[in-house]
């Protein structure tokens, strides 16, 4: 009985994190981006500085009509938002927030996470194809190109950490992590974070949804709840990417102080690092203009891939020398 209860509790916690953290990131984006642009952002919903804006948005989206274009491939069109969203929920299972605090310690956790995150992008490809819209098709093609280019440095950078830690289990990686890895794995961390941003199609890598030229790319034809699910998937993706970067490169639940001296619970450290990275994601969005398609490809193939390969070599040599 208690085992069933424990599993239920884990699932509820995973679902809770999945439903609240993206909203937190979204609200932070509303407010931080507004103030970076010398605006105020939402001020009304909920009374105090518009804290309930996204709740209000959710209520609005739930009431909107479900419009499917006549020309669209109906089944694929309707399925696409779920395909984009659910993988991020599943990924959260494998992400540890504190010692023992993990949905499940999968022994091939890193591999599992990378594989499932790749599925999420299929959602935008499906949307781009099924909409039967030229903007959507172009957006979908650009998504595919971007996935192709950035999946590789993403994988290689993650592999570098696996080499350093000698395990694919995410809690195992955090256990093996040492503070000097910050320097050792720095190029890998940068490559992983940037490539992850590009896979999420976040600015400045938002060519597939470039609003000034192809409306909203693959999501042009979407309204109402389906559109909301795509947005939720984007923000869940930010949470997952930031949490993964935290776990792989920033030491997860390990704080800078001796735990006996200043014993902040590991959950606080993991969440703090994740939110800090999420802020960086927002900060990059506000600060930089969109990269052109050829610049995107050049950055991936001539910038990130060589750096990731170099990081692999560095990790291999150092790991063998230390070991």
């Amino acid at each position, binding site marked *: 009985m208690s085992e069933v209860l424990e599993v239920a509790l884990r699932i509820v916690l995973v*679902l809770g994190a999945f439903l609240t953290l993206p909203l937190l990131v979204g609200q932070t984006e509303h407010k931080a981006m507004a103030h970076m642009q010398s605006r105020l952002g939402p001020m009304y919903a909920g009374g105090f500085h518009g804290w309930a804006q996204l709740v209000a948005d959710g209520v609005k989206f739930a009431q909107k009509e*479900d419009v499917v274009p006549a020309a669209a491939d109906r089944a694929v069109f309707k399925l696409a938002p779920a395909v984009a969203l659910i993988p991020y929920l599943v990924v959260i299972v494998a992400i540890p927030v504190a010692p023992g605090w993990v949905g*499940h*310690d999968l022994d091939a956790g890193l591999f599992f996470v990378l594989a499932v995150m790749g599925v999420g992008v299929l959602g935008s490809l499906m949307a781009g194809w099924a909409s039967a819209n030229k903007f*959507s098709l172009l957006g979908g093609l650009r998504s595919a*190109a971007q996935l192709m280019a950035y999946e590789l440095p993403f994988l290689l950078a993650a*592999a570098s950490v696996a080499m350093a830690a*000698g395990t694919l289990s995410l809690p195992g990686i955090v256990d093996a992590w040492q503070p000097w890895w910050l320097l050792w794995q720095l190029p890998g961390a940068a490559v992983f974070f940037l490539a992850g941003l590009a896979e999420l199609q976040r600015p400045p890598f938002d060519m597939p949804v470039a609003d000034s030229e192809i409306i909203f790319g693959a999501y042009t034809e979407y309204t109402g709840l389906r559109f909301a699910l795509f947005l939720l998937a984007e923000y869940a993706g930010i949470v997952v990417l930031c949490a993964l970067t935290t776990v792989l490169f920033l030491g997860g639940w390990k704080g800078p102080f001796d735990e006996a001296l200043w014993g902040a619970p590991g959950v606080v450290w993991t969440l703090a690092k994740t939110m800090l990275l999420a802020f960086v994601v927002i900060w990059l969005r506000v600060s930089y203009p969109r990269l052109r398609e050829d610049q995107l490809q050049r950055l991936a193939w001539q910038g990130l891939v060589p750096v990731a390969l170099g990081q692999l070599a560095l990790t291999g*040599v150092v790991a063998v020398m230390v070991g």
Partner: protein
Amino acid sequence: MDGFYGGYALVGLVLLVGVAFVTVAFTANRLLRVTVPGGDKALTYECGVDPVGEGWAQSHVRYYVFTYLYVIFAVDAIYLFPWATVFAAPGFGMTTLVEMFVFIGFLAVGLLYAWRKGVLTWQ
């Protein structure tokens, strides 16, 4: 919920929870929404003018060469992960590392060749 299959059973459960979440959301939507089908809103969006031709228009996929590169490297990456967990273990050491570097080196030279050939430019 122990062991190899136990862990993936939990993953399966969470997947079901995800499907349930989407189902609940759309059931709520069905109860709350207005439905006025037909009209211009079902028309394909093309900046307000009537759509020209069909949406699945022909276009030039400019990145198919990148796709080949990607497939080659992705297969390599899959080999990389199991190797990464054992290469530094006692009994493997330098030899294993050099072997993998030879393997990655071939790919890196391939990338360099593609680069020099001008394949990595978007035209």
